[in-house]
C-alpha cells in the first residue's frame, strides 16, 4: 500500500484532488492512501510513514521549505503541476507521482 501526502495551504483544496488520484490509482490496480494537509501541519504529519509528498501549485513558493522537511525525513517530494491540480487531473497526477518515485 502506497501512502501519498498532499500539501496545500490549508488542506482543503487538495482534498478535492485526493479523490482524483485515488480513482486513477484504483483504475490501474494500485492500492493507495492519500491525505491532504496544510503547510502548517506538515511537520506533525511527516513522520507517519509517507512514501511521497506532493506540493500543490498554489503554494509552490513554499516548495523549498517543504522539501527541506521532506529531505530530513528522506521522503521524495515534488510539485504537482497546475494542469494536474483539478478533479479531472488524475491521470497526469499519477504519472507525475510515478516519475517522482522512479516507477
Amino acid at each position: 500500500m502506497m501512502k501519498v501526502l498532499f500539501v496545500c495551504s490549508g488542506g482543503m483544496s487538495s482534498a478535492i484532488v485526493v479523490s482524483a488520484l485515488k480513482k486513477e490509482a484504483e483504475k490501474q490496480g494500485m492500492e493507495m492512501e492519500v491525505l491532504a494537509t496544510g503547510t502548517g501541519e506538515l511537520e506533525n504529519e511527516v513522520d507517519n510513514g509517507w512514501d511521497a509528498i506532493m506540493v500543490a501549485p498554489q503554494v509552490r513558493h513554499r516548495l523549498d521549505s517543504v522539501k527541506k522537511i521532506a529531505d530530513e525525513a528522506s521522503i521524495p517530494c515534488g510539485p504537482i503541476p497546475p494542469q494536474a491540480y483539478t478533479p479531472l487531473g488524475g491521470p497526469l497526477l499519477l504519472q507525475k507521482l510515478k516519475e517522482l518515485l522512479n516507477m
Partner: protein
Amino acid sequence: MSFVDFLEKKLSGPMAKISEQRHLRAIRDGVISALPFIIVGSFFLILAFPPVPKDWALALWAKKHIFEILIPYRLTMFIMTLYISFGLGYNLAKSYKLDPLSGGQLSVAALLLTITPQLVKGQFMLPMTNLGGHGLFVAMLVSIVSVEILRFCKTKRITIKMPEQVPSSVSRSFEALIPVAIVILLMSLVTVVFGVDLHHVVEQVVSPFVKAGDSIFGVLVPVILIVFFWSFGIHGDSVVGPVARPLWEVYLAKNAEVAATGSQNLPYTAPETFFQWFIWIGGSGATLGLVLAMIFFSRSKYLKAVGRTGVIPGIFNINEPIVFGAPIVLNPLLIIPFVITPIVTTILSYVATTTGLVSATYIMPPWTLPAPIGAYLATGGDWRAVVLVVINIAISFVIYFPFFKIYDHKMAKMEQSEQADSGTTLSM
C-alpha cells in the same frame, strides 16, 4: 523571456517568497492559531443581539442577560491578542528549533508586562482592553523581541547549565531562567521604571496604516494583489494575508467591541470578513458566476465537466478546481474578468457598507459556509447583506459571461477538430 515569465520570475515569485519570511510566517501562524477562539467567541455576539424583532421574548431575554451572554466572548475574541501572542511566540520559537512552549510563555509574559494592573476596591484588576485588538501590534513587537532574546541566549550559550545527572525537564527550566529574567527586566524597565505606555506609542505609529487600510484604496490593494497572485496560480491570500491580516483582525475586534455595546455605528468597513463574504464569493476572484456560466452555457464538454466538478466546492468558497481546471491561471481571456469582477464588487460593497445600506461585519463565521449564510451571520443577521451577495453573484456572472463565451467557443471548436481527427484515424 515572455512578459508572463518576466512577471512570474521577477515579481510574483519573489514577492511570494517574502511572505515566507520567518517572522511574517510566525505572525501568520500565530493569528491563525487564534481563529477558532475568535470564530466561536464572536458567535456569542449573535446570541446577545439575536436578529429577531425587538419585542420577541428571545430579544427581551437577551437584552436582560447581555452581560452574562457576552462573558464567553469577553474571554476569547475580546482578548484575542493574548491567544495570538502565545501562538506567535510558539511558532517563532519552533521555527528556530527552540523550545516552543518557552517561546509562547515568554511572549505572553512580555505582553502582560505592557499592561499595568489596577487596584480596585482592594483587589488587583487587569484592564482587558489592550489584550484585545488594540494591543495586537504591541503583542507582535514584544513577542518577536522576546523570542529573539531567547534565541540570542541560546546561541551565545548564556544559560545556566546543570550537571548531566539532572533530569532534562529540570535542566530545561533552568535553561530558560536567564532569557526570562532579561525579558521581564526589560519589559518592567519600559513599563514600570520609565512609565512608557507601549500601546500608546505603537498606536501613534500604526494609526495611519490602520486608517489607510480601511479606505477604498486600502481595500482595493489587497484585492488586486490577491487576484494578481492567483493569476499565476499562487495562493494570493497566503501571500497577502500575513501582512494584511493583523490589520483585518484589528478592524474585526474593534467592530465587535462596538457591537457588544449595542451600537450599530461600527467604526470599520474592511475586516477580513468583508472580503470573505462580499468579495470572494465562490473563492478568490469571485468565480461563482463563472461556474454558473460553465454549467448552464458550455458548449465545450471539457468546460461543462470542470464546471460540474467545481460547483459544490465553489458553494463552499473553494475554487482551485476552477482556477486550475478551466484554467484561469495564465489564461489571459479569463484573467481579465478574474481581476475586473472583484474590483467592481469591492467598490460596490464598500460603498454599500460605508453608506449604511448594509451593516458592517463584526462576526467571523467559518470561511467555508455558503456566502449568503456567511454574510448574514457576519453582519449579525442583516438580510440586506444577503441581497448584496446575490447582486455580487449576478455581477460576477455578467462580467465573466462574454469572456467565457469566447473561451467556450474556442474550446468547443478545438474539441470538434480533435474529434474529427480521431474520427479519420479510426476510419483509416
